[in-house]
């Protein structure tokens, strides 16, 4: 199991806001899971817990066999850097860097030289169909292209787990769809595990499993059996 949550509860504001209540969830390797729910339902909290950005008040979060609550701060940072790729609604690219430099950033932070990682950065930008935009800065790219750079960046450290928070929230309908197609293709081709938070039913429908949260609890779960491909 790639991600396991055992009886996880979390609260904010000294217990005044109960964000999650007794969540049990198993996510297998290679699954594309969408987490849906209204604002305040706890879906972003759930993503932050899996990313190790927040520790739960109760219960265990186990990612790739590691109990995140038992790791030291340093180990947790290292674990996240090597195993988790994050994709945000706001892209979060550095404006002064080119697309290629943004993509290479996670490994530059990890102490690798640009020379040794350049080929991988270029390969990933080709993978997200930005071959001719490698030297462009974020303000020279469309929203959809910026999100593609952010996806390539999330893949740079070869993280087996990708976490996306409303990845199409800032994009028009068609660009958003292209991003979702790309994410699903990456999950399948590169055997990644993807957890995506979204409030958009059309985005969620790209997943092979949809979990809906209401008031901090799982209120509904849907899955799909892959259809036989029709040419």
């Amino acid at each position, binding site marked *: 199991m790639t991600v396991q949550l055992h009886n996880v509860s979390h609260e904010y504001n000294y217990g005044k806001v109960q964000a999650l209540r007794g969540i049990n969830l198993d996510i297998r390797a290679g699954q594309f899971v969408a987490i849906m729910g209204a604002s305040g339902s706890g879906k972003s909290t759930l993503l932050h817990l899996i990313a190790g950005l927040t520790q739960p008040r109760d219960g265990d979060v186990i990612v790739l066999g590691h109990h995140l609550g038992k790791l030291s701060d340093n180990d947790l940072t290292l674990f996240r850097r090597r195993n988790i790729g994050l994709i945000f609604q706001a892209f979060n690219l550095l404006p002064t860097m080119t697309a290629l430099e943004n993509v290479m950033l996670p490994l530059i932070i990890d102490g690798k030289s640009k020379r040794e990682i350049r080929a991988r950065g270029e390969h990933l930008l080709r993978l997200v169909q930005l071959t001719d935009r490698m030297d462009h800065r974020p303000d020279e790219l469309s929203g959809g292209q910026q999100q593609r750079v952010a996806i390539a960046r999330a893949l740079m450290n070869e993280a087996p787990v990708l976490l996306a928070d409303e990845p199409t929230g800032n994009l028009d309908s068609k660009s958003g769809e292209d991003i979702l197609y790309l994410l699903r293709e990456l999950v399948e081709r590169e055997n990644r595990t993807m957890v995506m938070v979204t409030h958009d039913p059309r985005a969620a429908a790209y997943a092979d499993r*949809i979990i809906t949260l209401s008031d901090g609890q799982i209120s509904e779960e849907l899955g799909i059996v892959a259809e036989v491909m*029709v040419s």
Partner: protein
Amino acid sequence: MSVKHALLGLLTENPKHGYDLKRDFDDRLGDIWNLNYGQIYTTLERLVRDGLVELFDEVSQEDRPDKKIYRITSSGRNELRHWLVQPLKHEPRTLRDELFLKLLFIDLTDPELILQQIREQHSVYMAHMMQLTNRKYQIDGSARRAIENTHDDTERRRIERNRLVSLVVLDAALFHAEADIRWLKHSEARIKELV
């Protein structure tokens, strides 16, 4: 939608018999439009009667009636061309949902009854959207691969056209399901507020 024009359109490609027409139609529009053999054969009879389609060949089959192969006539091609340039009807489609009726008669002192139905219906639409999206993803993927593997421009254009039609049709179904989901969510909030 017009079965007559759908069959005329399919017959412009090449002569076909009823089974071919059903298969070709399902390949392209089967996700949203269930056309049965009965409709195909009665429409073919009418098209022959009106001179828009003619019998092209009859192939004898063992233990079964002869297979009739039809082709489009020049009048049929004119009719299709005329229909293609006609403006669409500018009328909103009929909006009818069983929920309207239930709301009229259900006891709203126990709102959980109707809210439960709304939640169940929501799951049905969401599962439907997953299936449609899965189908769209598969069609898109196999079209992309087929285009990569062909060097024939005519074949490439044919694949592109079929891909476009399938995606547009599936998108229509997806946008409608999404609208239904949004409407159900909105209605749920409205009922909770009223009761």
